[in-house]
């Protein structure tokens, strides 16, 4: 009788059930994001032209056929460049968000649980790092190290973990007084296990929600830096760099700056929707369990 239920696979696959429980904004955001990610992955298959191929017979062509998004001042196909740009921007956005998040949350959770000198030292470092405007500090570090992707990573890794450490610390300070933490303390578990196995999964929600909006901000940051000439160097098809190039032609060829701008907008909206949906969902789950 057990075999009969196993013979007919029902649609109660955990992935289906998970998606079925998502809110509208989470589904919409995830869908847009999925399209963008797929476009980035399959860019070589989708893109009708080489993103860096110049065609001087087709300079500043308006959107149409065969150039869906038009061409730029060097005759390059903007649609292809936007597709390839997604690869660069998403990868940079991903790493500049989730690498600092990883150690930021770990440091913050540890400080929040332990308190004492470790907490004090960490918080003073955070205060100093957060006292300066983020962008200004990044530009200072880039000015010292020189422009380029690698240095963007280094400067963001130095600074971006602070917010996550703050969030995780604050939540851990609440969490450590809860009974289940005391309960595992009484069971004589080692401190490391209590913090990372029992505390961490309970303090990570706010960081996950924040990471969605942080992702957008980091893409904007990289675009902004490239716009200023400190980030991705031409001819790489990065969205921000493309907008910077299009700025000079905004009167004759509005599409040059607008198309990559729309790509940034779509990514931003998708991530914002995901962040919103996650906040609701994780908040809700919190509500039902406590």
């Amino acid at each position, binding site marked *: 009788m057990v075999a009969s239920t196993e013979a007919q696979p029902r649609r109660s696959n955990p992935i289906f059930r998970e998606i079925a429980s998502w809110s509208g904004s989470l589904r919409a955001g995830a869908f847009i994001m999925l399209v963008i990610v797929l476009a980035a992955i399959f860019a070589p298959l989708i893109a009708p032209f080489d993103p860096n191929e110049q065609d001087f017979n087709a300079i500043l062509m308006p959107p149409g056929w065969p150039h869906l998004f038009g061409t730029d001042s060097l005759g390059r196909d903007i649609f292809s460049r936007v597709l390839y740009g997604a690869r660069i921007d998403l990868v940079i956005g991903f790493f500049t968000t989730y690498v600092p998040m990883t150690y930021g949350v770990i440091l913050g959770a540890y400080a929040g649980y332990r308190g004492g000198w470790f907490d004090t030292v960490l918080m003073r470092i955070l205060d100093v790092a957060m006292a300066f405007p983020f962008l200004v500090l990044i530009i200072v570090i880039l000015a010292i190290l020189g422009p380029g992707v690698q240095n963007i990573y280094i400067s963001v890794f130095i600074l971006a973990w602070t917010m996550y450490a703050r969030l995780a610390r604050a939540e851990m300070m609440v969490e450590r007084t*809860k*009974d*289940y933490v*005391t*309960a*595992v*303390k*009484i*069971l*004589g*578990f*080692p401190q490391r*296990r209590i913090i990372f196995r*029992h505390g961490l*999964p*309970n303090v990570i929600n706010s960081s996950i929600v924040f990471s969605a909006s942080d992702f957008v901000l980091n893409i904007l940051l990289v675009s902004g830096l490239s716009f200023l000439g400190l980030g991705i160097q031409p001819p790489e098809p990065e969205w921000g760099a493309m907008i910077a190039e299009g700025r000079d032609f905004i009167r004759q060829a509005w599409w040059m700056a607008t198309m990559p701008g729309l790509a940034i907008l779509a990514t931003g909206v998708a991530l914002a929707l995901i962040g919103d949906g996650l906040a609701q969902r994780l908040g809700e789950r919190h509500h*039902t*369990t*406590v």
Partner: protein
Amino acid sequence: MSEPLLAIEDLTVSFRTPRGPVLANNHLSLAVGQGETLGIVGESGSGKSVLCRAILRLLPSPPADITARAMRFGGRDLLKLKPAEMRAIRGQDIAMVFQNPMTSLNPVWPIGDQVSEGLRIHRGIGRAAARKAAVDILKRVGIPSAEVRVDDYPYQWSGGMMQRAVIAMAMTGQPKLLLADEPTTALDVTIQDQILSLLMELQRETGMAIILVSHDMSVISETCDRVAVMYAGSIVEMGEAATIFHAPKHPYTHALLRSIPHLDAREGRLATIGGQPPDLSRPEPGCPFAPRCPVASAECRALPIALKTLPNGQATACHFPERVADLDRRLAS
């Protein structure tokens, strides 16, 4: 009498606060024998939970200052143990069950994992063996179809079931002493009874001692061998449960017993104890109960209290235990 399992002598716990030190436990002494059940009663803020946490050394210092002449458990002084030795005691010899089962389990892990985690850490058993152990012990504490429910998450269980799981978790180390800090307060009355009988059953099987903290006199009277009554951080009366409930020798115990509502007494207001418990940050020289005591006299406000043993073995901190008997007569007239 042989060496008791836990012997606390002269324990004082105070908390440093901006308003000055707050005395939460004031020169407490008590002993718990092997397999004995000691009840601790008292109203909120009388220091019952602080006592439990002090025994397990769970109070962070600062702000807590803990001093005691000795706090011996199985011949070792708990206050002199190194952190690693204390961790071993916590996992194995002394366990604790809390008031609110809903918050005592980690919401993000399956219950079975949490119940058997102690075994995996302290005994180093493998995943499969731990799962089997979790099922066994969940069965033992009365979880139906434990084989299936072992993978459930805490939110899928009711409060009573969760408290059973918390008890199962505490029992995995086969403790010699179980601290039960108001284990039934958050549960409804029928479940309360089941949880208490479960604790008593487990005690009969394993021979562990239990310290049962409660503000519910009926819970204590049903389950405990001996009772300590706490007021304002001090033990004001201690002795055999039956004796204390029938012939209290401290006006506070008397007042507590009188304030239990009775179903047959429909008319009239509920009996209460007038006044407020004293401010623990400003200790008075005399008996802390004197301002609320109906039979207090001038000496009560001036002379410091100390627990003294009466001829029948009962111990009271009242300066004039003979006056307690007058209380009933006075109330009757």
